[in-house]
């Protein structure tokens, strides 16, 4: 099982954290500090696995961002690399060649996508198209709701105007 997902920039800034095992706020900060120290200092040709507190952290760097997932000792590290790539591809498809800034300003979108990909630290959907479709459907639900509220506000405003006339 995946215990947590971290997105850390090359400068050590945290861009996204998702915890599937309970870690208190204090522990979270400590984990992030420890792992950025371990991972960001590793050279480019080294393997993508770091052993840490009896667990394994699988990481992969995409441009300026490190995608890290922490797994149990007996999980399949190579598969986790595929899952990370899977997530990156979905993000890419969603944002249209995603960059770090997209993830900063639309961090909630990155979470929504992750939630369609993983639940309880397990993979939920192997098809990128399905994930994209589900996220898009929910986005459009939000849009419709917004339009409705704004049109309702308009109607009320108009009504108020007419009334005052």
């Amino acid at each position: 099982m995946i215990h947590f997902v971290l997105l850390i920039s090359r400068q050590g800034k945290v861009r996204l954290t998702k915890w599937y095992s309970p870690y208190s706020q204090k522990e979270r900060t400590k984990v992030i500090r420890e792992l950025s120290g371990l991972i960001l200092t590793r050279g480019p040709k080294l393997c993508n696995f770091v052993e840490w507190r009896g667990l394994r952290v699988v990481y992969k760097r995409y441009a300026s961002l490190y995608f890290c997932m922490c797994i149990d000792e007996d999980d399949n590290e190579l598969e986790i690399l595929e899952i990370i790539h899977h997530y990156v591809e979905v993000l890419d498809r969603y944002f249209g060649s995603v960059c770090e800034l997209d993830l900063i300003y639309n961090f909630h979108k990155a979470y929504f996508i992750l939630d369609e990909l993983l639940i309880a630290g397990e993979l939920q959907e192997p098809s990128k198209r399905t994930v994209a479709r589900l996220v898009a459907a929910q986005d459009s639900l939000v849009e419709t709701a917004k339009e409705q509220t704004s049109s309702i506000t308009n109607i009320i405003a108009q009504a108020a105007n007419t009334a005052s006339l």
Partner: protein
Amino acid sequence: MNPFSSGTRLRDMIRAIRACKTAAEERAVVRKECAAIRASINEDDQDYRHRNLAKLMFIQILGYPTHFGQMECLKLIASAGFPEKRIGYLGLMLLLDERQEVLMLVTNSLKQDLNHSNQYIVGLALCALGNICSAEMARDLSPEVERLLQFRDPNIRKKAALCSIRIIKKVPDLAENFINCAASLLKEKHHGVLITGVQLCADLCKVSSEALEYFRKKCTEGLVRTLRDIVNSPYSPEYDISGITDPYLHIRLLKLLRILGQGDADASDRMTDILAQVATKTESNKNAGNAILYECVETIMSIEDDGGLRVLAINILGKFLSNRDNNIRYVALNMLMRATTLDAQAVQRHRATILDCVKDSDASIRKRALELLYLLVNENNVKPLIKELIEYLEVSDQEFKGDLTAKICSLVEKFSSEKIWYIDQMLKVLSEAGNFVKDEVWHALIFVISNASDLHGYTVRALYRAFLTSTEQETLVRVAVWCIGEYGDMLVNNVGMLDIEDPITVTECDAVDAVEVAIKRHTSDLTTKAMALIALLKLSSRFPSSSERIKGIIVQNKGNLVLELQQRSIEFNRILQKHQKIRSALVERMPVLDEATFSGRRAGSLPTAISTSSGAPSNLPNGIAKPATAPIPDLLDLSSDDVPAPSSSGGDFPQDLLGVDLSPTLAPSGAGKPPKASTDVLLDLLSIGTYLPVQTGSSASDILSSSQDDKALASLSSLSANATSPVNAAPMMDLLDGHGPGPQKPKENGQAYQSLVAYESSSLRVMFNFSKQPGSPQTTLIQATFTNLSSNVYNDFLFQAAVPKFLQLHLDPASSNTLPASGDGSITQNLKVTNSQHGKKLLVMRVRIAYKTNNKDVLEERQINNFPQNL
């Protein structure tokens, strides 16, 4: 409208935070935002709740506290619209975890949403439940999730399946409710549902043996079929990853098959064909393919034996190991580690490659490879492998040296059939990475050296050479100094030259120089300096002509700020000045340690057994009292009647041998050093030293109680033993000053055991004094003394004791049943305990003390398991 909250949009806040140049600036911005959000929350501002929570999430990701926003999540979740719920659930998963009480409040909203008509809202609720639900919520909402496993939309079914995993992990009792639904998920065509269903089955098997049996019987066939279909499926763009259809599904199926096949020959048999097919047909040029192969190998190794498949698996690992991709090599090392238990021979074939991996530039790979290599070393290959490892030690990274040194030392000790090889290897390690060598390792080395009498000369010369070239390695310096002190004469006279040695000319002066360097070197720590002082004392006897110079060096330390060194130098100076006659006897060479003793010590708990000299009293449970230590008396044989001396020293053998027990708690007074074992006798004799209630930390009893068969060593006078433990020398010298040097009269047959405060409360103290009858070491006589610490008299005083079966207890009547107040008198009572497992088990006793005070019955109970180990 709130003047604060209307201020910034999420985007603006992020921009403002990103614009900060320093951490302090960022904190200020965040503080201001948090204040605004709090204000808005307090006003219960509905319009901005959504935005506030989004901001809070960003702030949370940055690592600032956001607990005050938790209730906002609940409010958003409880609202009707999808956008609010979506952000509310996201906030819930981010801001809370399962341990927060607040989470319980959301149970009801979750229940409603799980029954919502909008499937996306159901999806949100499932996702939140799956990610953060607590055990209680799992129990409450489990029926909803079970129902949703049969929901019409597959996207809900897959979410419900993963949610079920969380539920059964939190509450394993619920597992049986899910078995049937899970089995039906395995027949699904939708990949999302299928992989989550397979995963659910795997997790069910982990928590419930019933589930395991069920799936094994009913589903193995179907799973094999599904795997075959997916392996042979034509190209499907939706699930294709580098030419393989849905590797995730492959991997999960293989994982579940592994669980089903483990320990069941029948199920294993049914899956061998498909496993062989996966192992041979999967493309290994891309990561996805390798991930499948990796999983397949693991399954093959775990299921019931099939020779052919295993060969296939090990071959795949061999291929992995020679892969240029570090990731693949890493997993190969991992798998080979597991394979060693199955087929060590097959793994041995890859030894050379593994050795290369130990030298890899990648720390993760090095670590794995070293651990694997450690498992592969045996008598046949130990020499070349150790040679390679030591060579690598010279060039390895600092941070890796610790691990590497520990492993090398452990291996060298494990396969140390030839002493000279052992000594050579250890010297190399000490010179290369002496600072990483643990205490017990160099202690063991000294044991071996002192044991190998034919190699003394060789060793001391080799150490001297090494010392000249690398003085920076602390442990090397210590061992060298010890050996120069012991065997200085052999160093100078080239005694015991071996053919392989180059002759070396060392003058007495050079030898003293070396020790002087060690003592003056400012990086030397206290232990090293103390050892150097002892070495000097010894050299003064070995080299009479350098005696004056040595005295000079010793005197220089008279004013040392460290009490231990100061005391030692003063004592030694006195020996040099006043007791020339006994000096040579005092500093005689350490006796050769009996081989059986040593191997006995090594057997079992090598690291702990020898670690005594570093630990002092805190280090009591160090295995010293194990039966393995019994032969030690052969060495010193002090209780033997024909030793005309007080039985002294020899107690904590390694400490005395090295004379380096410098634990700070004990340093101030050599005389008051209770853990120094049998110095007690000496101390008793001189009535010095207040005993701390510490157990005598070692094998002194073994020395006294075991048979005495090596009379040859009996000639070893206690004086020489005593001098090697200079801390003891202090009272000794006082003694000598008083009576002048002469035969040591007092002869002790029995041994004084240290008294024990068996029980102490605010009202009562129980002291145990121990003694033994000569000739029956199994039986301990205990005199219990009870003292009243309160100001009231105790009446009807009754002491009871109980012991486990291996002990026999006899209680004599007490001297009285009234205990006067305020320690004004005491009660004594004699106990006799016979230990049928003497030497194997320690005494242990449960005591109960009942008495009346102020007409009130008082009962006090306690288990005593801190009896001196030498009883």
